[in-house]
Each structure stands twice: as C-alpha cells, then as structure tokens.
C-alpha cells in the first residue's frame, strides 16, 4: 500500500478512536467537559487536565474528543449522502443521455459556479423551527448542517460517477448483459456499480475533507453546531476572543481540523494513485 493511503487511514483512525473513546476518557479523568467550573479557568496543562482548561474551566482535551464526534459524524453523513445522491445522478445521466444528461450536467455546472460559502451561510441561517423541526439541539444541528452540505457536495461525485459510468457503458460486457436480457436496474447495480466504485470512493473521501472544513467554518461563524455542544469550529470561535489571555486554546482545535482534513485528503490521493 502506498504511504499516503496508510498515513491517511492512520490519521483518520486515531481521530475516530479519540471520538469513540470520549466517554471512557471522561470517566478516567473524572470530570464533565460540559459543566463550567469557574474556579479552574485557563488552567495550564496538568495530569488532570492534559491540555488545560478553557474560559469556563472545562477540560480542553475532553471537549476536543467530543468535538471529534460531531465533526466525524457530520463528515460521514455528508460523505454517505453526497455519494449516494451524486452516484445516482451520475448513473442516470450516463444511462439516459440526451436531454436528461444535458440538464443534469448543466445543473451541476451551475452549482459549481455559485459562490458556495455565502450560500451556505444563508442556508445555515434558516430557522428550522418554521418547518416544525426542532432547533438548537446538538442532534438537529448535525442533521441540518449535513443536509446543507449534501446540497453542494453531490456535484463532484456526480461528475466523476458519470464519466466513469459512460466509460463502462460502452464496454462489450455491458452490451452482452443487455443482449442476455438484463434489466436496467440489474445492469447498473451488478455490472456498472462495481466497476465505478474506485472513482466514487475517491470522490467520497474528498467530500469528507470538504465537509470537515465546511462544518468547522460554519460553526466558527456561529451558524453550525451551537454551544454548549463542543465542535472544533465553535471552540476556535471562543478562542479567537481570548488570543490575549489564552493563546494556546486557539492552537488545539485548529490542529484537530488540520489533521482530519489532511487525513481524508491523503486517503483520497492514495486511493486515486492505487487505481
């Protein structure tokens, strides 16, 4: 296996392990990362607080680990959603061709040419309470952000899936399957899908990187995961106000984002080179 693939998997593996181990670490260190402790604000790193405490006396390491749960959950949901939607669009476009293909691809081009970040902000500011959905809870925040990111994330997958599927559909084995009487669904699912899994996987890994950056950006701007639920982005937003009193608090969440994004980019790059 190429070094990039291994390194990417290792980085994501460490972060996933940290996310899963958050409750264990909480029991081990014996404090609640959600409960303010105003007598212990801005403590330096120590045995009980390995990375020190934040402006409300909460343990920074434990909050980072809980933030990893949020970031990875959003990233996995976006990768699954965008990959499913993008693959479906790409396959339909490749199979139908003609005006369906043209319409879907023009739509994809248009989405690519839009100013993404400002639109994400507009969408993230929508009051979900108006549709009768819950608002302001950690779970609904995650679902809301993931849904918005899927809206933009499918495009890259769809273009890759379409290009790969067009290549496969022109092969002789597809013609043979057609002659043998395979239905369109069977053709796509059993014959084309396994053969375009490679590029689709690369696109999925790239969308993980994009989702982690986008979620942390929105949370940093106060439109993503709302405090007191910790996310790397909103921890950085808090830290920005405290650059004079606690500069180190700004280092850790950014480092976590950097490692997660690097990990998924390396994974995508390694997968691409293996094909």
């Amino acid at each position, binding site marked *: 296996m190429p070094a*990039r693939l291994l390194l990417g998997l290792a980085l994501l593996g460490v972060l996933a392990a940290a996310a899963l181990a958050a409750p264990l670490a909480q029991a081990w260190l014996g404090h609640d990362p959600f409960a303010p402790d105003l007598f212990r604000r801005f403590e330096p790193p120590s045995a009980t607080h390995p990375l020190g405490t934040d402006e409300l006396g909460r343990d920074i390491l434990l909050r980072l680990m809980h933030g990893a749960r949020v970031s990875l959950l959003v990233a996995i949901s976006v990768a699954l959603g965008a990959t499913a939607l993008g693959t479906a669009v790409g396959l339909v476009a490749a199979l139908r061709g003609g005006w369906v293909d043209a319409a879907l691809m*023009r739509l994809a*081009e*248009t989405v*690519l*040419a*839009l*100013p*993404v*970040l*400002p*639109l994400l*902000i*507009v*969408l993230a*500011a*929508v*009051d979900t*309470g*108006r549709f009768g959905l819950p608002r302001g809870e950690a779970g609904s925040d995650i679902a809301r952000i993931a849904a918005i990111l899927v809206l933009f994330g499918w495009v890259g997958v769809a273009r890759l899936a379409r290009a790969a599927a067009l290549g496969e559909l022109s092969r002789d084995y597809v013609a043979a399957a057609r002659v043998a009487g395979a239905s369109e669904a069977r053709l796509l699912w059993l014959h084309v899908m396994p053969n375009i899994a490679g590029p689709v996987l690369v696109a999925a890994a790239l969308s993980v*990187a994009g989702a982690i*950056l986008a979620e*942390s*950006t929105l949370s*940093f*701007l*106060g439109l993503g995961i709302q405090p007191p639920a910790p996310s790397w*982005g909103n921890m*950085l937003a808090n*830290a*920005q106000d405290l*650059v*004079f009193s606690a*500069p180190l608090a*700004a*280092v850790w*969440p*950014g480092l976590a*984002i*950097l490692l997660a*994004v*690097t990990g998924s*980019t*390396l994974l995508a*790059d390694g997968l691409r080179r293996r094909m």
Partner: protein
Amino acid sequence: MLRILAARLLQIALTLPVLSLLVWLVMGLMPGDPVDLAMLADPNLTEADRERLRALHGLDRPLHLRFLAWAGAVLSGELGHSRLFARPVAEVLWPALLSTLVLVGAAILLAGLLGVLIGVLAARRSGAAAGADALAILAQSVPSFWLGILLIIVFAVGLGWLPAGGSPEEPGLVEAARYLVLPVATLAFVTTAGYVRHSLAAMQSVLAEPYIRTARMKGLSERAVVWGHAAPNAAVPVITLASLDIGALVGGALVTETIFARPGMGRLIYEAVMGNDYNLALLALLLAGLVTMLATLAADILQRLIDPRIAG
C-alpha cells in the same frame, strides 16, 4: 468560441433570476422579519401597529408579489436601502466589492507567482516533487480561520508588528498595506498550495514530452529548457485556476474578512444575513454570484486563447 460565449452568457442570464428567487424564498425562512424586530425593540407598539407597519412596508402581500415588485425595482436600477447600514445599497456594495478585489487580487498574484516558482523548481527532482506535493496537501488542509488567528497571535499580539485587523485610521498607501499584510498572507497560503500541486503535476508531464528532449539535445542550457520551454506550458492550469479563484474568493474571502474585520463582500453578506438585512444580503449575494460566474467564463475563454488544442 462565440458559441461558448453565447451559451455561457445565456446560462448566467438564466441562473441569476432563479438564484435570486431561491435566495428570496430562503431569506423568508430566516427568523424574524423587520416588523417583528421593531416589535421586540419597542414595547409600546401594539398588534394594530404591527398590522399597520406590515401594510406600510408591503409585508402583508403574498411572497411572489413581493418578489416581483422587488425584481422589477432592481431591474430598473432601483437597488433600495440597506436597513443595517441605513444607507442606499449601492453606497455600501461598491466599496465592499473594491475592498475584496484588492485583497483577493493581491493574494492570488502572490500565490500564483509563488506557486509556479515552487512547482517548477520542485518538478526537476522526483524527491523534491514528492516532498513539495505532500507539504502542499498539508498546507491545503489548514483552515484559514485558524491560520488567521495564529498569525494574529504571533504578529499582532506577540511581536506587535502589524495591526490585528480593521481598517486603516490614517490615509496613505503604506498604512493601507500594513493592514493588508496578514489577510493577504492568510488567503494566499491556502491558495498557493493548490497552485503548487497543479503546476507541479503539469510541469512533470511537460518535462517528459519529446520536445523537451529535443530542446536539451540541441544544446540549450537547463535554465532555458525549464524556464523557456517547459514553464510556460505548466503555467496554463495555474492561469485557469487563478481566474476561477478570483470568482470563488469574492465570496470565499468571507472568513478572512471576518477574522480581520475587513469591510469586504464576504463580511457584508455575513453581516447582512445575521442582521436580517434582506435587501442588502440578496443583492450582495447576487453580485458575488455574478462575479463568480463571470470569472468562470473568463477562465473558459482564457484557457482556449492560451491553448488552441482545446476545442470550441
């Protein structure tokens, strides 16, 4: 070429109205309209006042009629007022676009030169190329808001060399440049990484071409081969990427502008959305969309002008 141009312009002409309608509808879903906010601000207003105010501002009419009225006004050049800044929108919009274009232009110029330089130099040795590519992946993964905060901590808080953000208090080019250094560095850092990766890949494939071998064989110096024959071809993807980036960063500089408190397009959109300034948010978003789409068009045309092999 003309056909591409016409198709793209048609696409822009179709996209803008659809985008404005969608954004208009989405804005309607944001918490609180102006009258709600006025009610919250003033306890003396009664339910009757609310109805009267809604009728006065036309908020009692159905959404589609309100959209058509707004679109008609905008098309006749009537951009309306910004609620947040209490000024005509045009007065707010143009300075913001100018500020963003200065920031983005400086960042892309710096990133393009630096990226091509690193890419071309690193491409000649496979070890250096692999190292530069790996470093570029790492640099691409740096969240810009983190980098911005770190630069503020080091250069504004720690060393005190540069201002942490805001607008220059005194006029003068030097003063304006001092306020530009950190935002441009933040924006250029991540952008450079992309240019390094693209020019590196292009340079590696160009160096393997037969015409490079011919150039070497006829006795040209290595410098003439690399900079005279290979580099111009490797710069093509970077030029395309840069023109795409100008568009993407008009809205995408939002985070940098927010951290450094620069009054640009991105920050304007952010503040307008957060401050319930529908009209300003919508117009700023449309302007950013227009600039982004025009930049995509420019990238298309530029690519075809530089490289005639691309059909169309």
